[in-house]
């Protein structure tokens, strides 16, 4: 019998008797003979030890342990051990959606704290308890703006992650909506283009800070332009950068989303990650996802519950603001532990360290003949480099030397064959950066 089943032969006999059947097969009588599986060809079961050694072997076939200078929205940050320790608690790990608040106060309060931390970080008024990832969160924000404004035209800045833009395009393909893009070439959002695209039928302008090329921006002027047209401003942000960068709340952004991976979650080959969303109170009833609110119990004690549920699918069905049910609660709690542990000073230090290391790397790389580090905008921990050779070739040649040198842009920006974006987090030491530069010199033959 498989190790997760308790029933013994005696148990089964007693249960059959209580039910009034003589075998398990009797319980499946509704499944007619012709419904039987045409095949069920799966491997035989194995012991835990054998499965773990198989997983070990597969994990060993992946190239990990390389020095990562690749980012693109997903960053190699250090994860404090205490974060992992808290998340291993079975009481968080093996609970589910807090439908019964009395026996789920742990999850509920932790999610309330997560929401509050996201609000503090972004300077927004209300956040939800998580969405799937940064890309789908941005799509949800766009749909929220469409619902809020009753308009169907959306301006998408070219500095928004190309992956996010592809996601948005997929989801809107069959909907009666118009998406227009404002092109960007490795600098900040281009104001004249955005201004020309904004009109009084525009639901939202969607931006990213820092953008995919690493450019840091202040969207205050764009938010003002959008507001003048009755459109909402949506910004996708990199949470670690907000220890240092001007907040979307202070720019007048209406809906903030982002990828929370950098807040204590491993890279994990793309997930589980953490989408977050924050907005102002006037739009909260249009917001998707779970929201935890504080209230009191019948004895006046502070407690926490899922609230504003009239927005959600289990109540409103086809009229819900989103279909989301299971989200990324555990990842949100993980991020809450990370943010609490770092505190205000830790978050500022971390952001400053990322900025300084990236700036150091920029300067080192600039000294390599033929390497053109783009300086058309200030950057945070990622920047655009133009190489004298095809960037894909260069990145490929750097891997045997132990470095993932960056992400070549040609994949998503045709014509930018010689460009890559380079990310430098706190995990890269001065020595890593100098060795990286040396390896790059060798690969470029300079």
């Amino acid at each position, binding site marked *: 019998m498989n190790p*997760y089943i308790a029933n013994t032969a005696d148990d089964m006999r007693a249960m059959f008797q209580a039910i009034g059947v003589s075998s398990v097969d009797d319980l499946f009588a*509704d499944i007619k003979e012709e419904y039987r599986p045409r095949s069920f060809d799966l491997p035989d079961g194995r012991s835990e030890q054998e499965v773990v050694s198989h997983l070990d072997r597969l994990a060993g076939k992946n190239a990990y342990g390389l020095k990562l200078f690749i980012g693109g929205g997903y960053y190699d940050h250090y994860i404090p051990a205490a974060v992992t320790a808290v998340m291993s608690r079975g009481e968080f790990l093996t*609970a*589910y959606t807090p439908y019964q608040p009395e026996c789920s106060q742990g999850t509920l309060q932790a999610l309330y704290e997560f929401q509050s931390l996201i609000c503090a970080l972004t300077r927004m008024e209300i956040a939800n308890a*998580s969405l799937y990832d940064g890309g789908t969160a941005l799509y949800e924000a766009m749909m929220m703006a469409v619902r809020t404004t009753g308009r169907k035209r959306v301006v998408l800045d070219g500095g928004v992650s190309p992956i996010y833009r592809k996601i948005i395009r997929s989801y809107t393909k069959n909907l009666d909506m118009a998406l227009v893009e404002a092109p960007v070439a490795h600098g900040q959002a281009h104001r004249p283009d955005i201004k020309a695209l904004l009109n009084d039928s525009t639901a939202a302008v969607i931006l990213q800070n820092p953008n995919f090329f690493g450019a840091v921006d202040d969207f205050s002027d764009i938010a003002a332009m959008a507001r003048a047209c009755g459109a909402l401003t949506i910004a996708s942000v990199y949470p670690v950068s907000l220890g240092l960068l001007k907040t979307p709340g202070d720019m007048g952004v209406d809906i903030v989303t982002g990828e929370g991976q950098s807040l204590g979650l491993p890279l994990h080959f793309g997930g589980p990650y953490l989408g977050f969303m924050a907005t102002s109170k006037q739009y909260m009833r249009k917001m998707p996802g779970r929201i935890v609110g504080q209230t009191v119990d019948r004895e006046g004690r*502070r407690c926490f519950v899922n609230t504003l549920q009239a927005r959600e699918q289990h109540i409103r069905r086809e009229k819900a603001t989103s279909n989301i049910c299971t989200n990324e609660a555990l990842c949100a709690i993980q991020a809450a532990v990370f943010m609490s542990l770092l505190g205000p000073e830790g978050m500022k230090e971390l952001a400053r360290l990322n900025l*300084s290391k990236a700036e150091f790397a920029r300067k080192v790389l600039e000294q390599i003949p033929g390497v053109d580090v783009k300086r058309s905008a200030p950057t945070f921990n990622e920047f655009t480099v133009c190489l004298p050779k095809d960037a894909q070739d260069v990145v490929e040649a750097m891997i045997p030397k132990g470095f993932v040198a960056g992400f070549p842009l040609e994949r998503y920006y045709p014509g930018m064959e010689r460009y890559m974006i380079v990310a430098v987090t706190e995990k890269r030491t001065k020595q890593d950066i100098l060795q990286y530069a040396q390896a790059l010199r060798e690969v470029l033959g300079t």
Partner: protein
Amino acid sequence: MGNHCGTFNVTGKKTGELIFEKSVPGRRGFRCPAPDIDGESALPEKYCREAPLPFPEVTELDCLRHFTGLSQKNFSVDTHFYPLGSCTMKYNPRFSEHGAKLPGFSELHPLLPQLRQGEQYAQGALQVLFDMDRFLSEITGMDAFTLQPLAGAHGELTGVMLIAAYHKAKGNNKKIILIPDSAHGTNPASATIAGFATVSIPTDDKGVMDREALKRNMTQDVAAVMLTCPNTLGLFNAGIDKIADLVHSVDGLMYYDGANLNALLGRCRPGDLGFDVVHVNLHKTFSTPHGGGGPGAGPVGVKKTLIPFLPISRVVRREDGLFALDYNAPESIGYIASFYGNFGVIVKAYAYILLLGRQGLMETSNHAVLNANYMLSRLKDVLPPAFDRTCMHECVLTAKALLSRDVHALDLAKYLIDRGFHPPTIYFPLIVKEAMMFEPTECESKEEMDRFIQALRDAVALSADDPQILKQCPSTMPVSRPDEGRAARDLNANFFQTCI
């Protein structure tokens, strides 16, 4: 912070104290490495944060104790029997956690395989995805799977987008999706978001979709029927093949909501029953932890004709044996998530399937169904089933007879908490008055179920003898019967909005 929203219990220790209220200026929980480079960089002021960052200032111990304390306020599968119907709260084996955390998986950057020849750096991870595609296809009788959807509802949305793409390619102008009135709310929500109108089909007196009503609504406008099987009443529809024939007769597609797949492993396969699109909840049937509301995973399987529409990218095995990502899919619905799915979750489900194997998976459904029927048989004299017949992996009972004593399903649920059990799902499905939905899963022992059954029988007895006791439940928890109306009316979802 100067905020004293917390209340004191008899020991003088604050309950519900927030991490922000434990903050003491100057405390640190983490130190970044000292800069090893000369000089510090700065950005032009206009781009810099001026606003304070009111994060808590706590030590690592404060932080660990705070969140550990919170965790202890939860019921969980690890600590309590959790028969929450429709959620399949089975035991989550720990070896799969360990497997998912191996650095070769957890430290792998998702953009690596998108570099030129980059697949070679992620062969192990791609093999997991490739094998899972095959395993899930075999388990459900489908031809191919995408592992990208990040939760069950995300799988539904993906599935409905695939249905839309199929009809578009065939030039079908179909706008309606039929959904039984017993369905999860996610079904109509997903269909609507993908641009379809939904029509609700009633349930017949046997507890399954009313086939006559279905026939009346089966027009050329019908793009698909979305069904949970067994349905949310825990019942298997013996006429499922007839429904499939009917839907296919108008070139509609059959969508299978796999929330309840745990009942059917090795007994029948949605693909053989005539379903064209399937989603599976890895966090239910394949035992990955629910995490208090995610992360989950909702892979979607399709029949051959729908493969061209699957999301980008797909994992393929090249002739040289290497696993690769195929981005060349001109008919694809496109990107539905940033990467290849909730990979960490997928690894755990993969480990689970490998460990159980063919036989273990079949045992899983056998015992899930046996346990549910056992609970049904021991409870139905005090709480009648919504439909009195053999159930599958869960059973739905009604507490409506107790209404005459002003006792509700909610009161029974709160009593169970005091007896140390997580309550069943209550008030779902919506079509059953005072519904209570029990799903014990294959993992619970007879003794544990007996204890639960006795507790629930005691609750029903109390409803006649002393209903006030039920109304006072729970009394053993840190809080009791939160004022949900007030939470929505005087919304406080952000500490800093109300307390600064």
